[in-house]
């Protein structure tokens, strides 16, 4: 299986395991979409802003002495986006409803980020 197949599988399994999740994005830290099930018209921007939010999250963690960054969350009235570092040069972002089972979303998304890390290093 190619790396791309592995990443597509992680994306698919995450959606299957947590039906609340309505979009998964694996992006490079340069903001390029690598694997995603976001609609094509949204994917370009979601990839770029996810990478940007992750970079900013890192800086905030450093400057406010928060330790290793684990997660960046953006919560809107209609949903939230959770962003995780997924390897040295990539991020994983998931979109979920703001009133869903957040515990499960977090658990599965952070473990998917670990899987991505294994694939991409």
């Amino acid at each position, binding site marked *: 299986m190619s790396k791309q197949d592995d990443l597509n599988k992680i994306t698919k399994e995450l959606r299957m395991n947590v039906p609340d999740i309505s979009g998964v994005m694996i992006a490079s*830290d*340069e*903001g*390029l979409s690598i694997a995603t099930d976001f609609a094509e018209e949204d994917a*370009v*921007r979601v990839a*770029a*802003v996810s*990478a*940007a939010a*992750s*970079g*900013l*999250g*890192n*800086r905030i963690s450093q400057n406010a002495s928060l330790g290793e960054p684990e997660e960046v969350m953006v919560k809107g009235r209609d949903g939230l986006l959770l962003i995780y570092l997924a390897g040295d040069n990539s991020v994983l972002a998931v979109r979920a409803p703001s009133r869903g089972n957040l515990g499960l979303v977090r658990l599965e998304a952070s473990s998917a980020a670990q899987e991505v890390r294994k694939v991409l290093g």
Partner: protein
Amino acid sequence: MTNEIIEQIPECVRFNDEDAQALIRNKDVLLTLEDGLVEGFYNSVYSYSVTRAVFTDDERAAREQTLRDWYRRTLNGPFDDAYWQWQTFVGLVHIKRKVNNAMVSGMWGWILTYLSSNALEHLEANEAKAVIKALHSLQAAVMALISESYQRNMFVAVDKASGIKEALLMRLVNIEIDGMLDDARANGTG
């Protein structure tokens, strides 16, 4: 960073040793233009409210002296690493004082016109041609250093402050530019 920027300019049009020699060889004549250069330059920037606003009330004499020193150092050579690094530094000094690239580029236009027309008047045709070519290549190199170094320093600063790397920032910019281009095409302006 300085060399890397200069090396973006095609070698065949880059400021080269021949250009340096043309300026140095004709420096006696070019130095006679110094007073006119300094006066014309500062008359222009002081006569326009936007550029005038850059200066504090008692600054003109000091500024005239810095332009004089720059002109002399340029005509004396050498065009070594220290010279190009200084041009980059001068660019940053300007930015700190809110002298933007449009102002500098505009005044370079004036300098080129002033020196070229005088070169044609006071030098033999082939020498005048060589000097004019040298001045144009010099201006291109200096503007390249000023604009690129500013952009690169900005990328470093944004990364430091926000964690957003150059490649990502360029991507965000390009996404917006794509949108603007689409709009322009849809409006028939592109």
